[in-house]
């Protein structure tokens, strides 16, 4: 199966009458790690929410795994990692939060199967939080909470991971741990679309970067690297240098 995970074509989104995204087109191919870059207010988060159906779009097409968004129901194929989770019941445990990721394939009034429980433990282990599995989510550090949200997104073994600024409020060492985790997911064949303020620790992983400015895509291509003659050109020789990425680095 070679269906493109995300195709966005000529997308326009307005919120409260204010245009936020204008004529946005891009795609995320299988096995790609694509960064969405841009300053505050450039429309990155709105774009992510639009392609997940969380905000309506006025015109344009969004297709997820080849299916128009309006007809898309295979939600277990998408793992969504929001910037943060608002957990008001302060005793909610890591395991409970991660278990909620199983609901895309569970019917109401059914118990979680033994295999489902094992899968929850497996993804908690994968993000390195087995010892914290029964701790309260709100007592974890920012980086650990981010790992929990990633684990929750991974429960359904989705082929596409969408992350909205996973590094917000996370120190550099923890950013590196999260990047390591995303690398291992990418190695498993997962396509990743990640909203970033800075490429920094993610840079070695990125297949491509898309730069938004005032709701428009101003650049879409492969990042320039610091290497000297070691970087292999991607197939098709479509390497483009994104000078505009530098100010955010």
């Amino acid at each position, binding site marked *: 199966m070679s269906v493109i995970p995300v195709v966005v074509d000529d997308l326009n989104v307005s919120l409260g009458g204010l245009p936020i995204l204008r004529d946005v087109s891009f795609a995320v191919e299988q096995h790609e790690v694509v960064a969405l870059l841009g300053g505050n207010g450039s429309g990155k988060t709105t774009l992510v*929410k639009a392609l*997940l*159906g*969380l905000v309506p779009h006025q015109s344009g097409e969004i297709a997820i795994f080849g299916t128009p968004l309006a007809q898309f*129901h295979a*939600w277990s194929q998408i793992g*969504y990692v*929001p910037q943060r*989770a*608002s*957990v*008001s*019941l*302060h*005793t*909610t*445990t890591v395991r*409970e939060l991660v278990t*909620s*990721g199983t*609901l*895309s394939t569970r019917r*109401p*009034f059914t118990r*979680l199967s033994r295999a489902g429980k094992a899968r929850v433990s497996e993804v908690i*282990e994968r*993000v*390195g*939080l087995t*010892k*914290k599995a*029964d701790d*309260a989510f709100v*007592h*974890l*550090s920012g*980086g*650990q909470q981010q*790992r929990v949200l990633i684990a929750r997104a991974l429960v359904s073994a989705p082929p596409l991971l969408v992350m909205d600024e996973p590094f917000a409020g996370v*120190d550099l*060492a923890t950013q*590196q*741990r999260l*990047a*390591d*985790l995303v*690398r*291992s997911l990418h190695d498993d064949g997962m396509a990743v679309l990640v909203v970033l303020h800075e490429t920094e*620790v993610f*840079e*070695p*992983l990125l297949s491509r970067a898309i730069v938004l400015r005032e709701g428009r895509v101003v650049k879409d291509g492969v990042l320039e*690297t*610091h*290497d*000297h*003659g*070691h*970087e*292999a050109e991607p197939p098709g020789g479509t390497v483009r240098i994104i000078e505009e990425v530098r100010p955010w680095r």
Partner: protein
Amino acid sequence: MEVITLAFMQRALIAAILTGLVAPAIGTYVVQRRLSLLGDGLGHVAIAGVGLALLTHTSPLPVAVVVCVAGAVGIELLRERGRATGDVALAVLFYGGLASGVLMAGAAGQGAGTLSNYLFGSLTSVTASDLVIVAVLGVVVLIASVGLAPQMFAVCADEDFARVLGLRVRAYNLLIVVLAAITVTTAMRTVGLLLVSALMVIPVATSQNLFKGFRSGLYGAMGIGVVVALSGVFGSFYADVPPGAFIVVLAIAAFAVSWPITSWRHRRRPLASVDEVEPLPHEPTPEHEHVHGPGCGHRVVEHGDHVDYVHDGHRHVAHADHYDEH
């Protein structure tokens, strides 16, 4: 214990058990959605239903249920469409419901004494037909609150994530307020419309102090709700005071007792280390002939107590006779 041989007390005790189970059960979701005062607003809407029933000489409980559910749906739709903030919507519920209820009760020739039976509960007012309605609706609310706990938990914890799971978030949000409205009205005979919100919120807060985890907290709150509701009904009988007041005072006392326990637990909990996680799986780089070192031409990234070298989609460091991916 002759008291439990009295027919009206038996009805009051059964109603108290159901209310004690149901109010904290749905209250768990209401608290999680940060709408702790929703029950209070719905209680005021139900007063309009009681006033309407008195005016039309019909049974107050079924009319109050219908009016309260309609009000709950209306306010949820307003909130969802962003046409009223939570505060404004609740204020409309408070004053519109209370004022119209008192107006209609007055027009029906009923004074404050009649209304107070519904506002603070009354042991003698639970009729056999009321008990049937309370039991049926209570079981419905319980089945939904416990059976749909995973879905309602997900919706309350993170609406956006729940939507990406494919859950019908709007339907679950509506279900929560409808169940809350049913709970408020079925509780009016025991704890009363003005105090029912306390039984929806305080046992939940108490349970949070005593139990770890959402589901444990849910069952714990239901247990605490039953204990305080039953104790309150007995206390009300012997002290000859409205049961609602007794139940709520007991609920607050339970919360006060639980408070030091959670403080003690927090003091015992070791401070979380930022980096307190197990390392990710050890991942060696396959076949790497080049030897990295200062001046080798590859990008260097500081990583904890060492440096990683970056090239060709790898970021790794020498380890024994191979390189590890970092």
